[in-house]
């Protein structure tokens, strides 16, 4: 992956001591300070950092996209030797789109919804070069083919909403590559995509890199993605660059405390809570107005900080020829990154017998079905005569959850995990099947359930910004479930709230604060406290950490673990990040198109035997380790519609294994429903391929 360290390619972009500030009513606010890096031809520079670190601001600064109140206050940006700062709009326009292209995060917003894709693509060419329509069209079709778009001529005639998210992003990348740019900037291009789609798009980016030799800036907050894609890595914190160097070196030997903190906060695929710890970074990122000018900006959160760090701003210290870090102690920070995370493996509990399991069952579903009726547009259906169509969001799901255990549910968008949760909690009525909780049948909606049952099943939600009611204080919102379920007598409510706040590691001062005064991580903790207020036996966590920064994620996950251990609650943990799910759960269920395709103990899921879909998911997860070897199994096609799921095995339209591992080219998968194959310890897989064949598959991940 590394460009040869002998002769370096020529530099395409030189950023020197760049500072960018925004004008606000209260004066200038500095978003980026003193950033220096170089991007060379054929090289990809990864720009990594959390929200608010200024990485997108740098990208906007390079293309002069800062908006009316943003300005470059210091430093130089040289593109192919030419100075970019201080240029007029007209001059920049000639450079932009021609030699410098940008790919944004949300393809839905980057593409014009009312113009055909072909027209948009051709416009990129005709705007910058004297070229005929036919020639332009030919080149566009060519480029679409190069980005692996199926049926390119047809796609030219379509509109944005007629293609899927992954395809839209490919079109955006094609648009960016059309003029053969010298520099391509990508701002979180895969964040909005599903894991398998993301893997395919990252493959594409790598292919294009070797084909076009463009210089690349890749901005992301995901360490796994950046490990895969980049050659050089720049780590940003609070508007400053804190470390930069070759990606393998930084991952192998991170020298800045922030980089080390990030690496320690992210679970690697394969880590589990039994044998490793996640170390969150305490505190929060300082707001732009609060950043000290004459001190190390990371000092308040740093475990190694000394007085010198609080009085003097460190300069970049060179650790090796290309690796430098902004820390006084960079060279002396000792090397104990990964190994110290391991803790002694807790003894595995003895295998339980079936009777033991039955006695402890908390939640059980058999053949659960949740269909949403699709409103038909025809007049016939108005009279109730037409054929009724259903979106089969959850189709025949059978699960069992024992007391105190954690079940992780994994799947991509459209797999039915949110609908599953809604059905369990009772927000949507079940269409069929049985559901039992604490021995009581709960197939009715929440309004019909008894208060005593409702109390025992509570939820933690995904989006911290909308999980709390903005009109009421934190104390009032945590007190509400306490009062409603009468867990403590009236005069003890306040102290109970304070106790819960302490349990989620917030001080009692938070009692009177409003949600808008809290950060994302704090709001999420309040959401957890609220769920705990009724002392439930089961807590359902619907993607509780996806919307949080990496360093905060670790804190919330640790909190949930603590709660698990102290209160003994069972949990259902839904996420799309496989590493986090693996870390946190005892058992895992993999869902695809409304069905559970594999379910079993967490450590058995990540090794063969796999369901072919699980295999593809595991091979798509970006691992934050540039040296890890990961199989590359990509799924073709799109997720079929849940209105009309495929006959037989639902996965058969995209299954990469069936043609080779089954007789008759896997014809049975298109006709018959697959049976459950039993592997050891309750691990089962829904597949026609016999278990012996599945066990022979190679493991997807070989750890470094």
């Amino acid at each position: 992956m590394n460009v040869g360290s002998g002769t370096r390619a020529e530099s395409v972009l030189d950023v020197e001591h760049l500072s960018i500030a925004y004008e606000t009513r209260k004066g200038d606010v500095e978003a980026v300070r003193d950033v220096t890096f170089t991007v060379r031809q054929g090289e990809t520079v990864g720009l990594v950092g959390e929200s608010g670190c200024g990485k997108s601001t740098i990208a906007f600064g390079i293309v002069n996209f800062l908006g009316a109140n943003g300005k470059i206050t210091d430093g130089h940006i040289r593109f192919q030797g030419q100075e970019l700062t201080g240029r007029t709009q007209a001059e920049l326009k000639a450079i932009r789109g021609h030699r410098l292209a940008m790919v944004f995060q949300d393809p839905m917003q980057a593409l014009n919804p009312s113009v055909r894709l072909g027209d948009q693509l051709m416009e990129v060419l005709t705007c910058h070069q004297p070229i005929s329509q036919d020639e332009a069209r030919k080149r566009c079709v060519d480029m679409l083919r190069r980005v692996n778009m199926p049926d390119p001529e047809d796609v030219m005639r379509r509109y944005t909403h007629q293609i899927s998210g992954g395809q839209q992003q490919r079109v955006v990348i094609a648009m960016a590559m059309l003029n053969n740019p010298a520099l391509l900037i990508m701002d979180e291009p895969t964040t909005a995509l599903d894991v398998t789609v993301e893997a395919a798009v990252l493959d594409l980016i790598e292919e294009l890199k070797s084909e076009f030799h463009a210089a690349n800036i890749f901005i992301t907050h995901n360490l796994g993605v950046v490990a895969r894609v980049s050659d050089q890595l720049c780590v940003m914190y609070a508007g400053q660059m804190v470390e930069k160097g070759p990606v393998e070196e930084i991952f192998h030997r991170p020298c800045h405390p922030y980089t080390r903190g990030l690496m320690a906060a992210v679970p690697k695929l394969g880590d589990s809570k039994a044998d490793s710890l996640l170390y969150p970074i305490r505190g929060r990122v300082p707001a732009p107005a609060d950043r000290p000018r004459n001190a190390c900006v990371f000092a308040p959160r740093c475990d190694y900080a000394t007085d010198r760090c609080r009085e003097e701003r460190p300069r970049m210290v060179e650790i090796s020829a290309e690796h430098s870090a902004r820390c006084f102690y960079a060279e002396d920070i000792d090397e104990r990154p990964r190994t110290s995370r391991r803790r002694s493996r807790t003894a595995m509990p003895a295998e339980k017998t079936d009777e033991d399991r039955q006695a402890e069952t908390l939640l059980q579903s058999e053949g659960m079905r949740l269909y949403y009726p699709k409103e038909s547009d025809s007049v016939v259906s108005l009279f109730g005569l037409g054929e009724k169509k259903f979106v089969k969001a959850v189709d025949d799901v059978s699960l069992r959850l024992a007391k105190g255990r954690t079940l992780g549910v994994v799947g991509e968008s459209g797999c039915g995990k949110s609908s599953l949760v809604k059905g369990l909690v009772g927000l949507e009525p079940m269409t069929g099947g049985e559901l039992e909780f604490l021995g009581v049948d709960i197939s009715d909606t929440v309004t019909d359930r008894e208060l005593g049952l409702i109390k025992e099943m509570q939820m933690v939600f995904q989006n911290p910004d909308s999980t709390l009611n903005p009109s009421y204080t934190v104390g009032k919102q945590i007190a509400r479930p306490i009062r409603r379920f009468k867990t403590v007598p009236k005069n003890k409510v306040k102290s109970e709230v304070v106790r819960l706040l302490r349990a989620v590691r917030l001080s009692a001062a938070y009692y009177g604060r409003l949600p808008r005064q809290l950060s994302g991580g704090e709001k999420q903790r309040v959401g957890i406290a609220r769920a705990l207020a009724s002392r439930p036996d089961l807590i359902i966590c619907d993607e509780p950490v996806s919307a949080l920064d990496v360093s905060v994620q670790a804190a919330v996950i640790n909190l949930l673990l603590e709660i698990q251990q102290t209160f003994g609650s069972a949990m259902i943990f839904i996420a799309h990040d496989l590493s986090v799910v693996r870390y946190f759960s005892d058992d895992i269920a993999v869902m695809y198109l409304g069905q559970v395709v594999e379910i079993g103990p967490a450590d058995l899921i990540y090794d063969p035997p796999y369901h072919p879909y699980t295999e593809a998911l595991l091979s798509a997860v970006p691992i934050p380790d540039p040296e890890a070897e990961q199989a590359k199994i990509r799924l073709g096609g799109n997720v079929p519609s849940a209105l009309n799921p495929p006959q037989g095995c639902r996965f058969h339209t995209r299954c990469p294994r069936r043609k080779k591992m089954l007789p008759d080219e896997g014809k049975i998968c298109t006709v018959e429903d697959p049976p459950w194959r039993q592997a050891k310890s309750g691990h089962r897989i829904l597949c026609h391929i016999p278990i012996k064949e599945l066990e022979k598959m190679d493991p997807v991940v070989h750890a470094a």
Partner: protein
Amino acid sequence: MSTSIVEDPEAVIQRRSFFRRCWDGFSVLLASKTATVGLIIVLFWVLSAIFAPFLTPYTPLEQDWKSPNEGPSPEHILGTDELGRDLWSRLIYGARIVLVILPVSEDFWIPGGTALWGVIVALVVGIILGLVSGYYGGWIDEITMRLLDAMMAVPIILLYLIIMAALGASAVNVVIAMTIVGTPGIARLVRSLTLDIRTREYVRAAETRGETPWYIMFVEILPNARGPIIVDAMLRVGYAIFAMGTLGFLGLGVPPPSPDWGSMVAKGREFILAGSPWAALWPSVAIASLVVGLNLLADGLREESMRYQ
């Protein structure tokens, strides 16, 4: 985040007092120039109406046959109408009925004024309808909205005419008419706000707790919709005042000899060409200034609340 060991949570919990919160709301108003101007105008009329008996030596009913249709003079600041009544008194007592006092019957009155009560009752009915339609959706929503659409399809003046003709002219009936006319618009606004807020996760959290729909609508959803509703309500008071002026002009408002601004304009109209525009001018200015004041207040509030979005 280290937690301090404190035995008594009360010591640490800070709650902003009621007065502090009111003051904060007020300072939002004053921060906007538009809202401040509007507030001054509205306060002028409200205070004049409240302290009316102290602001003029005359009553609105006192007739002085010797000086009809006079212009502004030292005895009558704004002049007199065709029956010699002092215009300034009739103005501020007219403001009373609109803004400050609602005469329910001969001896019984309640504070508030027709315009205010019209909007308040319309708010109550409209909010309930809007919340229910927005939250439940489905048939309830369809039927309610279509009924309200039907009401909105009738031109407002016509609707007022029909209602006043059916009910008769009195202050309470004006309030009823204003309610009927104002409810559909408010219901629609509240419904669209509810549709949006209903998707938030804190509403789902409340549903997960098994809260009743009424709790969710009034405790979880409504407080978060209060911004646009307040702004709209202020505008509606303006519309209501304007409507009262129209009704009075057509002779359908509060019956004479009450100093209704609209009927004052109607009576005074005849004398404009004869050289005495005063009886028609001042009530028109009064209506216009009050409506403009309320609009400015509403605009200013909206601006300030959007500033921090």
